[in-house]
């Protein structure tokens, strides 16, 4: 792990995302995922059989069916059988699982993908079902109502934010990433985006126990990932609502010079469960294209930024911020 003398350097060596759609074009999950898997394989020149581990992220409720990831698996060529897992989370967490798995040392590459068909469901209703089922979900507050509580808290705390948030349009889309370790990464990619810090933290679900003008878990994840160990040129933040940027800039310690969501961000494309992975892919793409030397990606889940993941990407693996992760361990929590 970063911070350990035995850490393996791991980089993002390929990233692909769909042409996201605000209307249902009749694509299945398989239709969304397969071209992207083909694209990242082509970019790296890897054969399917050379992928050591595969992990994906999705949400059954978006299309209202159990096991929506099973159909997607049918598209990625899982034959001969593959070492594979799935999180019912944003695929940024699938990337985390794959990155941890590569640290074992016996696997050098991983394929990560996420997909979401947001256009066929009612996200306010679906998100309400992800809250405390006894006391909160029956009120059906929805993601926008919850975001409104945080926007109001931020406005009251002096942030210059609109206290009346609007959600991004429902989106269909997907993303795929290939991770590779050490020499394999150097062989597959002219400018690998090295993961020099990666961490995620959750905080209590009960909003009454949290100060909504802060995001303690985002701050913790940023510290453990070592964001502060160097300048950040570009950041891709999982800001489904505009007011979240101001808060996250502060909690991640981003300077005013740092360009946030140059890609357009989740406000312009929000395929739920791929949105966070796209942030990591976009932050990596700035390094792949030579446009930046150090970028940060952020993914979030839960009401009012309950669960936050932070990834630091660098053009060089030497002098990595992994050591900052160790410093973070010693820091106050």
């Amino acid at each position, binding site marked *: *792990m970063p911070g*350990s003398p*035995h850490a393996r350097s791991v980089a993002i060596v390929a990233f692909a995302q769909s042409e996201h759609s605000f209307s249902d074009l009749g694509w*299945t999950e398989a239709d969304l995922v397969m071209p992207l898997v083909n694209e990242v394989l082509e970019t790296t020149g890897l054969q399917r059989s050379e992928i050591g581990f595969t992990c994906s992220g999705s*949400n*059954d*409720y978006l*299309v*209202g*069916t*159990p*096991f*929506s*990831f*099973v*159909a997607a*698996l*049918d598209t990625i060529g899982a*034959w*001969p*059988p*593959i*070492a*594979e*897992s*799935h*999180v*019912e*989370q944003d695929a940024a*967490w699938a990337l*985390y*699982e794959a990155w*941890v*798995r590569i*640290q*074992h*040392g*016996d696997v050098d590459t991983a394929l990560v993908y996420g997909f979401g068909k947001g256009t*066929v469901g009612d996200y306010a209703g*679906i*998100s309400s*079902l*992800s*809250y*405390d089922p*006894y006391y909160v*979900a029956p009120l059906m507050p929805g993601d926008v109502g919850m975001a409104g509580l945080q926007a109001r808290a931020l406005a009251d705390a002096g942030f210059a934010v609109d206290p009346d948030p609007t959600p991004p349009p429902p989106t269909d889309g997907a993303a795929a990433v290939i991770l590779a370790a050490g020499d394999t990464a150097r062989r597959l990619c002219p400018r690998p985006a090295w993961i020099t810090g990666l*961490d*995620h*933290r*959750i*905080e*209590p*679900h*009960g909003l009454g*126990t949290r100060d909504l003008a802060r995001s303690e*878990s985002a701050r*913790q994840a940023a510290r453990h990932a070592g964001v502060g160990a160097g300048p950040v040129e570009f950041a891709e933040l999982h800001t489904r609502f505009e007011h979240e940027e101001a808060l996250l800039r502060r909690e991640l310690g981003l300077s005013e010079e740092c360009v946030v969501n140059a890609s357009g961000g989740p406000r312009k494309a929000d395929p739920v469960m791929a949105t966070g992975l796209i942030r990591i892919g976009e932050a990596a793409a700035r390094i792949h294209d030579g446009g930046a030397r150090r970028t940060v990606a952020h993914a979030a889940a839960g009401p009012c930024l*309950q*669960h936050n993941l932070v990834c630091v990407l660098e053009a060089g693996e030497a002098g990595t911020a992994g050591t900052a992760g160790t410093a973070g361990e010693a820091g106050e929590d």
Partner: protein
Amino acid sequence: MGNRCAVIGVGQTEYRAKRADVSLAGLVREAALRALEDAGLTFADIDSVVVGKAPDMFEGVVTPELYLADALGAAGKPMMRVHTAGSVGGSTALVGASQVQAGRHDRVLVVAFEKQSESNATWALSTHSPFSASLVVGAGGYFAPYIRAYIRRSGAPGNIGMMVAVKDRLNALRNPYAHLKLPDIDLAMVEKSMMLWDPIRYLETCPSSDGAVAMVLGSERAAEASTAVTGRRPAWVHGAAMRSEPMGMAGRDSVDPRAGRDCAADVYRQAGVTEPRRQFAAAEVYVPFSWYEPMWLENLGFADKGAGWKLTESGATAFDGDIPWNPSGGVLSSNPIGASGMIRFAEAAQQVRGQAGEHQVPAAADGSRLALGHAYGGGSQFFAMWAVGAAKP
């Protein structure tokens, strides 16, 4: 495999048709607190939490790890939510173990649960994508044709499934956590029960349960510290693997899936197992329908192809046989779906720790042989397994 990883604490809830006495949070917390107590730890000692369960539609709570973070003491920690269909309990254990094997964490709490009384699992499993039609009802409707194919291929006598149903329910009488307790169970009772999905009778299928299971997985350092406090030995992970294959692929053998064989081969290679029947003292294998015992006996290499049913028939897999399968009573006796895989992993660990109580297999108690934990899911396409032992690998 990376760094060494051990099971240092196990906690289970009582499995029941309906746990109306606890909320979802109360259910998972019950298992977690028991695992922590077994490990001599508190929530404050835990570095990371991994939660697993089957489809969210079983309880109608979407991404429930968000709501469960408070009850599982996860605030300020990393938290993951795994979902790999029926194999998820096993996969969740492996995702947690991976964090230890990677050197990322010293103590990981893994928790798997299902509170099936919140919904109707058969119909939750029959809801299919708006993009494709489904012609089956429930898991039994899906698996019955595979079982018929197995019987035809192997020439197994028709009573083998009933023998498994009786054996596992007799084992459950030794397990205080088991859901189904049928003291009068015999072949006649099974045979008389209603045919649900030919050839699966009512008493040859698993129940629908509420329940949770938790384990604390630890590094070598954490394992030594726990043992020093509790006096209980850990179960070391000797081999661990996941394998998946597509559901819809022409030529795929869904009766004897290659992913299952490959997964077992990977675990056996890591653990140095060449003769599973001799080297394992016990196996906890995901058998939701009785006939899956002979099918998995072959898939996991305990018997030659076509000969699995002969082991069952000979009594080899019974509690007093030479290779007891599901001494806890198995999935046929307790089935909170999302937890069922992890229960197998945890029961395998308890066997080699010598902590299985009345269903302790004597040959496993001295820790000289390994135990196997197994889970599968989807259309017999997702597999997760581990081999655990009392000796450090």
